[in-house]
């Protein structure tokens, strides 16, 4: 359970950065988008501790803005450091996803 959540946290951070890069989003919107991409086994609430951490690390910034439906919401967008972190994450992910997949499948080359 612990390993699973640690692994998920790191991957979720990267996914959240990637989604915010496309378009600034608020919390609920973000969880809907993650869900739409198929990340359905994570609880919706788990994004908030991550959003807080990304803010603390100055990778994202939040601003209260009126949403299209009316009420003001806290929209997150990437900072320069966030763009950099996302590029790093993508690079790391690309170098490990193939090998990890093949190892899990039984050590055969893909």
């Amino acid at each position: 359970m612990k390993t699973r959540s640690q692994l998920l946290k790191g991957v979720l951070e990267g996914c959240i950065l990637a989604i915010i890069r496309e378009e600034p989003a608020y919390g609920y919107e973000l969880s809907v988008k993650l869900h739409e991409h198929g990340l359905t086994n994570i609880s919706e609430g788990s994004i908030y501790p991550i959003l807080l951490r990304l803010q603390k690390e100055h990778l994202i910034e939040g601003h209260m803005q009126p949403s299209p439906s009316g009420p003001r919401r806290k929209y997150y967008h990437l900072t320069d450091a966030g763009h950099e972190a996302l590029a790093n994450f993508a690079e790391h992910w690309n170098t490990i996803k193939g090998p990890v997949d093949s190892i899990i499948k039984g050590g055969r080359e893909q």
Partner: protein
Amino acid sequence: MRAKELIKLNNEKQKQLTEENAKDYEDMLTYIRLSSSKSEQQTEEILLELLDHALLAQKEGKSIRDVFGADLKSYSQDVIEEIPEETKKKQIKFSFRLLLLFATVTSLFSGIVNSAMYYIFGFGDRTQVYHLGSSIAIMIINVLIVFGVIYFVLEWIKSSTFKEENKKKPSWVEFLQLWLVMTLVTGLFFCVVYFMPPFGMKFTLPTIIFIPIGIGTYLISLLLKD
């Protein structure tokens, strides 16, 4: 938006929660808000975000527990852990304000009681002898007691969150416990004054002077208000 406005907005929006969700959200809010030393601004921002999310989810028939997990306490702890610390400057300012308010209450109390005794009822003296050393020692000990009480009350309120309805203590038991603690603390204040041996430089002050001193510390505490 500043923390105060966020709190107001939060209170307004909470009314839209269903009864069950309201109870769960209130527990989370109390628990997260009372985690001292965390940035008030950041705390209120995340609390409003959690509420907004809960309200949108509620429209889709999802409960707070569906969204944040069945173990709301450990979820709240995860959130608290990631909230940045309050700036040192704000923490110090806040502590000073508490000290000044405590000084206000004790000065006004002793000033009014002693003066009333003398001028209205003819008891006691117009002036009182104080010892610099013991006065300072009394102040320090009482201030420590005040911070201890604040800490106790915060922990006490926090411990009352996330309890199932049937496991909650009846409110009269809670009231009695709190009453007992407050009585003990008040007694402790007087014990400190009563048992402190006099030491240090002696000086005499008219008791009425504590009324303007109390007003003064109150005015200074207003300056420290955000």
